[in-house]
Each structure stands twice: as structure tokens, then as C-alpha cells.
């Protein structure tokens, strides 16, 4: 996971370098164009659940991808529909016995965002729904092998794009999601704050 984030970061640095060497332009994107982006994301997820923090640490890295469809309303205003997937895995220890634990969380998200795109940069914000699939796997000495399940919640997200070229942008964002479950017989809060960056390639429709 850290390698993925590092690769994204290096890609981002390369892109910035390419942009710095190119001819400076005020506006890179054409007006009133609908476009579709495909992006790779990475970052850190800061978990709210106290037990999670105790067992796995305060944060965990993730990587994922995102598809965004932008509908210009009246430039620079527009509406984005975004679908994303994110996965994180983490290793920890049971609270008393210190036996090995392994957790995988996979999030699917669907967002409806307002976006303001100047052609050089854009900002966006909006709500969405979040679907979380979880699986926790235990050491052989544990009384059970694993627990898995899923739960739906919601999120709000916000961030910005910086257009490097007409087709390439970088993105930074945060997302707060709230997903709670009592399926195990006690409450578990799978929500938290996600801070991430990414790089996107744009296709004009």
C-alpha cells in the first residue's frame, strides 16, 4: 500500500515537473465540455472507532480508483457524479492475547458533487453513499477463524483538481464517512476521515 502511495506521489511530481516546463496557459480545458475521468487514488484513512485505533493504530493507508462524470451547468459551475472504490488492509493484535489480527475494508462510494472548474483548477464538494465490506481474520489459536460482513452508510467529500494538461489532472481531497454496524453483537464504527491524492485522466465526451 505504501508503495502504491509512493508511486502516485512520484507520478504527481513528474506531472508537476512536466507542467512547469510547458508553456504557461491560463485555461487548459475547453468550455462547456462534458468529460469523464478515470483516476487512481491513495491516502490515509483515519478511523473513528476506538477499538480499531487500539488494535490497528490510528490510521491505515489505502489505494483505490475513481470514475467521474462531469456535467457543466453554467461554466464554471457543474455537477459531478463520481463512483469510487477503495481498499485498505491492516494487521494488528488482539487486545489481551496479542494474537495476530488481519483486517480488510473495501469501500464502494457513489457521490453527487457540485464542482467549480476554472479551467486551471477546480474545487468540488458533495454527499454520497458508502458501502463497506469488511473481513477480519484471526490467528489459529483464536476461538473463531474470521468475521466478515458489509454495511451501508453515507459520506461527504470535498477537494480540488489541478489541471496539468487538458487531459491530466491531479486531485487532493478529503472524505468523511459514517458507517456503523452492530452485526457482531456490539457497535463498530467503520467511519472516519479519509485524506487522499490522486491523478486523473480525462476523456471528453
Amino acid at each position, binding site marked *: 500500500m505504501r508503495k502504491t502511495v509512493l508511486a502516485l506521489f512520484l507520478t504527481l511530481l513528474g506531472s508537476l515537473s512536466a507542467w512547469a516546463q510547458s508553456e504557461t496557459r491560463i485555461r487548459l480545458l475547453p468550455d462547456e465540455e462534458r468529460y469523464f475521468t478515470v483516476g487512481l487514488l491513495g491516502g490515509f484513512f483515519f478511523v473513528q*472507532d476506538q*477499538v*480499531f485505533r*487500539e*488494535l*490497528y493504530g490510528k490510521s491505515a493507508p489505502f489505494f483505490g480508483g475513481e470514475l467521474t462524470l462531469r456535467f457543466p451547468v453554467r461554466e464554471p459551475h457543474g455537477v459531478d457524479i463520481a463512483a469510487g472504490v477503495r481498499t485498505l488492509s491492516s494487521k*494488528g*493484535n*488482539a*487486545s*489481551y*492475547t*496479542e*494474537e495476530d*489480527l488481519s*483486517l480488510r475494508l473495501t469501500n464502494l462510494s457513489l457521490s453527487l458533487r457540485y464542482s467549480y472548474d476554472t479551467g486551471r483548477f477546480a474545487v468540488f464538494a458533495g454527499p454520497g453513499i458508502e458501502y463497506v465490506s*469488511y473481513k*477480519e481474520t*484471526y490467528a*489459529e*489459536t*483464536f*476461538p*473463531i477463524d474470521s*468475521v466478515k*460482513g458489509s454495511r451501508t452508510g453515507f459520506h461527504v467529500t470535498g477537494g480540488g483538481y489541478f489541471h496539468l494538461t487538458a487531459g491530466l489532472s491531479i486531485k487532493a481531497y478529503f472524505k468523511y464517512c459514517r458507517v456503523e454496524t452492530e*452485526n*457482531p*453483537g*456490539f457497535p*463498530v464504527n467503520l467511519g472516519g476521515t479519509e485524506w487522499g491524492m490522486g491523478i486523473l485522466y480525462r476523456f471528453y465526451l
Partner: protein
Amino acid sequence: MIFRYHLRFSRSRFGVLLVGLIGTAAFSFGQIHFTEVSARFGVRGYPEFGGQGVSWVDVNRDGRIDIFVKNRGTESLPDVPDILYINYGDYFMDEAGSRGVADAYPYGTHGAVFVDIDGDQDFDLFASTAYGGVSPAYNHLYRNNGNGFFEDLTSSIIPAQTTDLSTRGVAAADFDGDGDIDLYFSNPLPDPDPFNPFPSPPESLPNFYINNGNGTFTPDFRGIVWTGFTQGVTTGDYDGDGDIDIAQAMWGPPSTIFRNDGGGHFMDVGIQVGLPAGYGRFDNGIVWADLDKDADLDLAIVGTGRIDLYKNTAGSYSAYQVIRWTRPIEGFQVSFGDFDNDTDLDLYLSGENVYENEGEGNFTLVPAEESGLAASLSIAEPRGCALADFDGDGDLDIYVTNETGPNRLFRNDLNNPDWITAEILIDTGGHVGGIGAKFDLYEAGQVGVPASLKGHREITGEYGYLGQDSPIVHFGAPAAGGAKYDLLVTFQDGTRRVYGGLTPGQKVEVASVAPPLNLNFKKIENKALFFRETLIEITWEPNPLNDDVEHYRVYELDQGQSLLAELSASDFSYTLRNIDKDKVYRFAVTAVDSLGQESEPAVTDGNAGALVDRSRRRALNRTLKGQI
């Protein structure tokens, strides 16, 4: 006038009070005094006949010492059951019939000894039969089922009894040193003539039941030739070589000692060690005890109107005092106990009186008006007697049988704190009672220093004439000056345990393997993100008395006990996973030594306290699956 009346009344009361105070002070300063309480406790036996011997033993292991009275019948009324008085604290109740030990032979019982034959930590009964003209007259073995109810296993474990027997004294000990209890019985023939001093020829008859270790016994002859009518029998390690020797009182031939060669074979060494060689005495009782506090067994032989006391010096005996009395009784039994808690052993002659030890084994009669034993002097035909602290007040009480009248229980009125008692809960052979074990009480910090020895005891079964003391060893241990004591226990196999820093008034529970200490358990919540379990962690500490623990056993006590785990000697905790957090649990942990002996359990009280939500990180020294 009124004033004078009250003054006179007060003086009268003051006098009574003064006498009481003086009496109490006298007792508390160690004067020997007894009160006859047999009627009060309902232990007088049959009113006109029967009593031959007595054993003090806690048959139902309730902590109260019971009484077994060995009775014999007469020509006119042969069927006289034995009596088992169960101690209920304030009173005794005869339950011999319902508990299965009333009798199996019309003419009753003479010798009988309670001993843990099968190593299940209760007292079984080996009861002899005195032939009375009715065949068969066999000895019997009764197995205690653990709760004081007995099962007659004679036919299954003592096979091939084909001869009627006239047994008097019996003995029980691990004679061959193989870890199990063997049995010896006197007069292995049907109808010997007790008054023939020269039976001819001596007969080599099987008079041992050798324990095969598997619940069966083999009748065997082990060198004790029948040479004449035998009365009381006793056991002890008179020569300090670690094995159990036998002494027996004889009619006709001289009373003698049989030395064990270590393998359970015996040789008559009476004359060799200095006992008289003359024929014609009628000795009834024989007792080994350390009368001069030099850690060896001195000897008392009683009969024919005298007690002969012999001092033991390196395994040889020399006569040093003869005690005679004026009452027209033959003299059947003497018992030695520290009646005044001054550390030396005093002497009680059944049906007579107490003699106080002056410190070096010389005895002086305590007049009846001081000793309170006038009722003892009225016993018409005294037989066996035995000692025990039946009321748990730290002094030794006396029960005396009477062949032609009611038996007597004498309560010791000493009631001072100058005592230490010890009971073997389990010895290295797995037996309760610890027959063959030796106890040496020293001043604290002086173990092994002869001048600091305050008392030496050896656990025996029957002794004297058909008496058996409680297996709870009693020492006088003066508390003056804040004195403390160390107790050295030597089991028959030579294993030693030292219980240090004992305070007077303390009872020591001795075990070859002592239970672990500081047993505790906690309920702890162990958390994963999506799974929560309550686990129980049981912890204990090793007992410093143990030097041979091989493993620990962990039990759950829940309508019985179930073994949870057997752990190595280096483990001091055990964890149960995923338990019901609302259930009340109780656990026991025992230590097991290399011989397989298991200690008494250390038991939790069932209160684990609040659930501990212990956050990281404390490693377990054991994970749990697959350990049982």
C-alpha cells in the same frame, strides 16, 4: 440486718469465684486435669460389657474425630456389635450399623486399625476377629467409600482365608517399603491356649497380608513366628533405619521386638536389644514413644500389674523405671500424650491415672484429686484406651474401654494455647494419616539441633492394647515469650518437609505435595474489532514446600470436578477462552509430584471480581487450544 445478709451472701459468692479463679489459673498454668464427659456426649458404649479397644479416627473427613469401639461378646451374649460414634460436635451418635462396620462375627472384634489402605485419602478399616467357637472367624477389610460409609471387601482382597483366627493386636504400615500399606495380625490360628507359656512347636504361619498394589493382598509369613499368645501390637522405627519394625506384648513368652530388614522380613531381636528373656509374664500392651526427647523410640510394656519403661540408646534398650499401682487391675494399656502441653509426654494407664513426665522420661503419679480421674479408677475391667483432641481445644482427651461396664471419655480441661498439631493429608505413598511418618518439633531456626528438640512423634496404627490415637499429631508448644517452632516431617520414604515459624495454637496440614499458593482468577475481555470474548485467566504461585512438582492440574468445579488441563511445573497460569461471562466459575489447582501424588486442591472462591477490560499488552504464557 439486710446489709449483713447481703454481705454474707457476697462473701459466699466471692469464695466460689475465688476457688474458680484459682482453679482456672491452675489449669492455665499447665496442671493436668480431666473431666469425665462420656454420658454428656453419649459415648459410654454398652452398659455391662464389651469394650476391648478404641480408635480415634475421622471416618467421614468432616474435621471432627469419631470413635470406633472394638467390642467382644460373651458366652451368654456373643453378638455384640462394634460401635462407630460419629462426632456431631455437641454429641456423638452410634452409626456403625448404617455405615457398615458393626461387626461380621458373633464374638466380635479385638484388634482393628483404621488406615488408608487404597490411597484414596480416607480411612479404611482392618478389623480382626477373635474366634469364639463359631466358624468362620476371619479378619475383615472394609473400604471407606469416602464419606464414612464402608463396604466389606474381605472376600475380594484377602483371599484364601481358610483358618479361623484368634487375632488380638493388628498393625498396618508399609512394611516392605513399596509404597502401599500392608497388614499384620497376631495369633493366626483358631484357638490358642493363652495360658500355655511354651507352645510347641513354634509355628510359622502366614500372619501378613502383603499389599500387591493392585487392590489385592497375599497372605504371607514374613519371619514373625507364632510362639505364644499375643496381645497388643505396635509399630515404629525403633532403630532409626527408615523401615517399620514391630513390637508385641506376649503371654508366656517374653514381649519382644521384630526388626525389619528393610524388605518386610522380620527377625526377633528382643533379647538382642536388651529386653527381658524370661517366660511367664502376661503382658497386654506395648508402646513406643520418645519419652526423653532424644528423637528415638523408648518402650513401655504393661501387664501383670506393672509398667516397665525402657530407654532407647542407639537401638538398644535398658530398663529405667517400673511403675506399679495398687488397684487390682492387670494393666492393659498405657498411652503417652503431652496432657499439660509442657512438651514432654505424660503417661495414662487405662483404668488408672495419669503420671506426669518430669522431663527426662521419669514419671510421677498425679493424684486423682488433682487429675480429676477418679472415674477412671472406678473402671472395673479397663482395656484399651486412646488419645485425641476430640473437641479441638488444643489438648489431648482420653477414651477408655471397659470390658464389664461403660466406657469413659475424659475431657482435658487444660485449654491453653500452648500446642501445635499436625495432620498428614497425603503422604508420599498417597495415603492420608501418614502411617510411618516422623514428626520433630524444634525451636524456630534450630531444626536438627538435638538440644532444641521439643518433641518427636511417629505415626502408628494400633498400639498398646488395641488403642489407636487420632492421626493428628499433638505437641505441647509453650507460647511464652512469643516462642515459635519449626516442624520437621519425615515421610517413610525419607522425603522431608519443614514447616517453619509455627505459632502455638496452630494446626499444620502436611502433604507430600503441598497445594499451590495464592490461587486467583480474573475474567478478562479480549477484543478484536469484530469479535469479543471473555476469557478467564487462572494464576497461582509455587509452594516453597514443594521441591518435586512435575505438573499442575487445573480443574473446574461445577457439580463435581472436571479436569481442564495438566500443565508443566513451570506454568503458573492457565487461560480459558470464550467463556460465558455471566456464569459463576470455581476452579481448583493441584500440584503433582514425580511419584504421581497429587496435592490437596487450592480452590478459588468463585468470585472473579469485575470483568477486566485490559488493554494491551500483556503476553500470555500459554495459548489454549489443544492443551487438555
